[in-house]
């Protein structure tokens, strides 16, 4: 809950829940460092359901602690990372996933950046090449004089 208020707090003061625990607690940590590392990796991608855009790894809310414990339980039981995440989604819904799985229209989300880049590069290459090929025509020669006059004016 706390960090979501970065900035926002300066502007609209959301009531903050008074919580005692601070993110991952020592008693949660698994003895097996490999499993623990996987648990940390998963919990960074799971959103705290009652907070404002915070992952359960950083969150202080009790429900995040429950989720962290569930994830570790499943890992100890031998689940793969994907199985653990499926388990969490089945109970809390897709909302808790910070890294949404590709489904339905989500390709728009992922592809809009690259598509915009391709469009922008293609468009500007087209325009620039045409302009470069056209070269300074008679119009621009005229305006060069004007430009010189402008610089003259700017100077004094």
């Amino acid at each position, binding site marked *: 809950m706390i*960090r979501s208020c970065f900035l926002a707090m300066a502007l609209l003061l959301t009531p903050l829940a008074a919580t005692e625990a*601070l993110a991952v607690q*020592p008693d949660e940590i698994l003895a097996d460092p490999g499993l623990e590392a996987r648990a940390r990796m998963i919990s960074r991608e799971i959103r705290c359901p009652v907070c404002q855009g915070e*992952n359960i790894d950083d969150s202080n809310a009790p429900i995040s602690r429950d989720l962290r414990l569930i994830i570790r339980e499943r890992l100890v039981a031998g689940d793969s990372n994907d199985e653990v995440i499926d388990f969490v989604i089945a109970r809390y819904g897709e909302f808790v996933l910070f890294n949404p799985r590709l489904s339905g229209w989500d390709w728009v989300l992922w592809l809009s950046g690259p598509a915009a880049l391709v469009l922008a590069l293609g468009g500007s290459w087209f325009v620039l090449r045409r302009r470069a090929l056209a070269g300074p025509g008679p119009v621009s020669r005229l305006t060069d004089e004007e430009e010189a006059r402008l610089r003259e004016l700017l100077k004094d």
Partner: protein
Amino acid sequence: MLIELGHFALILALMVALVQTILPLWGAWRGRPVLMAVAEPAAVVQFALIAFAFGVLTWAFVTSDFSVALVVSNSHTLKPMLYKISGTWGNHEGSLLLWTLILALFGASAAWFGGALPARLRARVIAVQGSVGVAFLAFMLFTSNPFLRMEMPPMDGRDLNPLLQDPGLAFHPPFLYLGYVGLSMSFSFAIAALIGGRVDAAWARWVRPWTLAAWVFLTIGIALGSWWAYYELGWGGFWFWDPVENASFMPWLLAAALLHSAIVVEKRESLKSWTILLAILAFGFSLIGTFIVRSGVITSVHSFASDPERGIFILMILGFFTGGGLTLFAARAGAMQARGVFGLVSRESALVANNILLAVGAFVVFIGTMWPLFAELLLGRVMSVGEPFFNAAFTPFFVALALILPLGAMLAWKRGDPGRVLGLLAPAALAALAVGLLSVAITQGQGMIALLVLVGAGLGLALLWARVPQLIRRRVPLIVLGMAVLALIWAVQTGRSALGPIGVMLGAWVVFGSLADLWSRSGREGTPLAGRLGRLRHLPRAEWGKAIAHAGMGVVVFSVSAMLAWKVEVIAVVAPGDSFALGPYSVQLADVRAERGPNYISTMAEMVVRRGGAQVVTLYPEKRSYPVQGMPTTEAGIDYGWLRDIYLVIGDPQENGGWAVRAYIEPFANWLWAGCALMALGGLFSLSDRRYRVAPAGAKSARPRGKEVPAE
């Protein structure tokens, strides 16, 4: 009484802003100098009225006037004076007043310093600025009045959110607003130019300093917020891709694009309509940021209903200015004629590439931030988009930007010679490669040996450099960067371990590239050192500003990569008196005791950090509890260092008598803030360039000679 005067001043300011909008626009349209002349006094009076209202509100906070509702909900008599003052803008209504104050200040600045502008352009700029003022003053008066009284004044207030009671955050909002609102000037200039149908070098020379100033303020504001998150939130993170953070990051990206494209307009009279479009979009994103933050629509879709009036009002403001601006753009952009012609490989093209990458980056952040809202409204799906998406989708654009930055910055205007630039950048590429290799060696524990080998190789190469043929030199950056990109792709495919070295290498490439740029301007090969230094001293400040700001960005890339890759974390239960290992250090929890602050109680730990038996530092991390608001904050104990921060946090007491403790080593953390400071400093250098200081003043002194100054 004073409070009512403040309220009244705001109403008057709204009236003045209306006059400031309508009369000068009409006058400029009809060619009536008398009406246009209204603009300047109106802007100044509007500023004075809002400044008075702001002063009244500050006074209410300073004297703890609990008959004012806003003071009751955000202040307390025991609060330290600094936070009583900063409490003025630590809430929705007060921050909005600060927003409008800065808006009016910029309008008045256009009146004070705009003497050299053509009369029509000046009148229109001030009028458009006034119209933004009308919108926000109306918003404040109708939905968010800061001067509401309490019917029954309580004995004491409810205190300011304790997280806000911090020097870093006290000054974070004002800087951000200076940036957000600064972009309104670029917007006003863009609209005025569209109405007048004229964009030329003189116009760009006016727009660029305003954009640059706005960008500098945004940089400082974002850095302050990030720094605050780092030391205050208790686990050493500095950026979270939170919607509210993104709200400030998008205008920053677009302002960066705008200040680069304005260079092309100013120097080459090209990219005019694109620059106008960017100016409209940059301010549009400022407004979108305001909307995201104040309506609460993104952080939680459901809280929109809690204050629909405010959200809808801002949406209307956003729609009016962005929609209106874009419509005007569509109608008039054809009138802007480009004059400068340039080749495909040139400084202009490089700046176009910079603009594309920054704008597409901003677009990706926008899509990611808004997608949950779209998905819920259009697809009926409740979902989240967070850090994993932004890391994967945004970072490639920034990596590409860092890769091409040193090349683009050194290309010549009009027609560049890429071979020559690559040759000049060869030493920078080799130095960056050395930094990357060194980082690998240090993390593998072979630092000293690698350093000796690299220094030897560097010295040898420096002695032989003059004999290395140009053809080979020109290949060096391509080979090094190609290797880096391949390694990056390989690292993304296989795991993260190689991202750190590649990231620091990329950062070093930008830093050394900026140095190479400065060096190449100090003379040709063979110029004696004294001559080079002399020329460096006399380079225009804009050149220095460019190099400093670019190097700052390189330092930021370097530091972010290092922190993400090599952060060390320990979470443990420690009994008082016991020690635990943190990387090469040993940390002892010497004592935990209760302390009292002015308006909080604190659990303070005393932790002694040792290395090899020798004491490094003693830190006092705290957990504070603010009784009035009933919430805890963590105050990490941080030992700031050149190469690393040691970051200690005290947690809760455990059942078996120990304490939960979190400890981190944050490599190169200070470099992040230093990099941001360098970027801002570079902007300031550029802002103080001779052409901005001299051109307006020169034009002013020239005016009396002309005697008659026609209204254009």
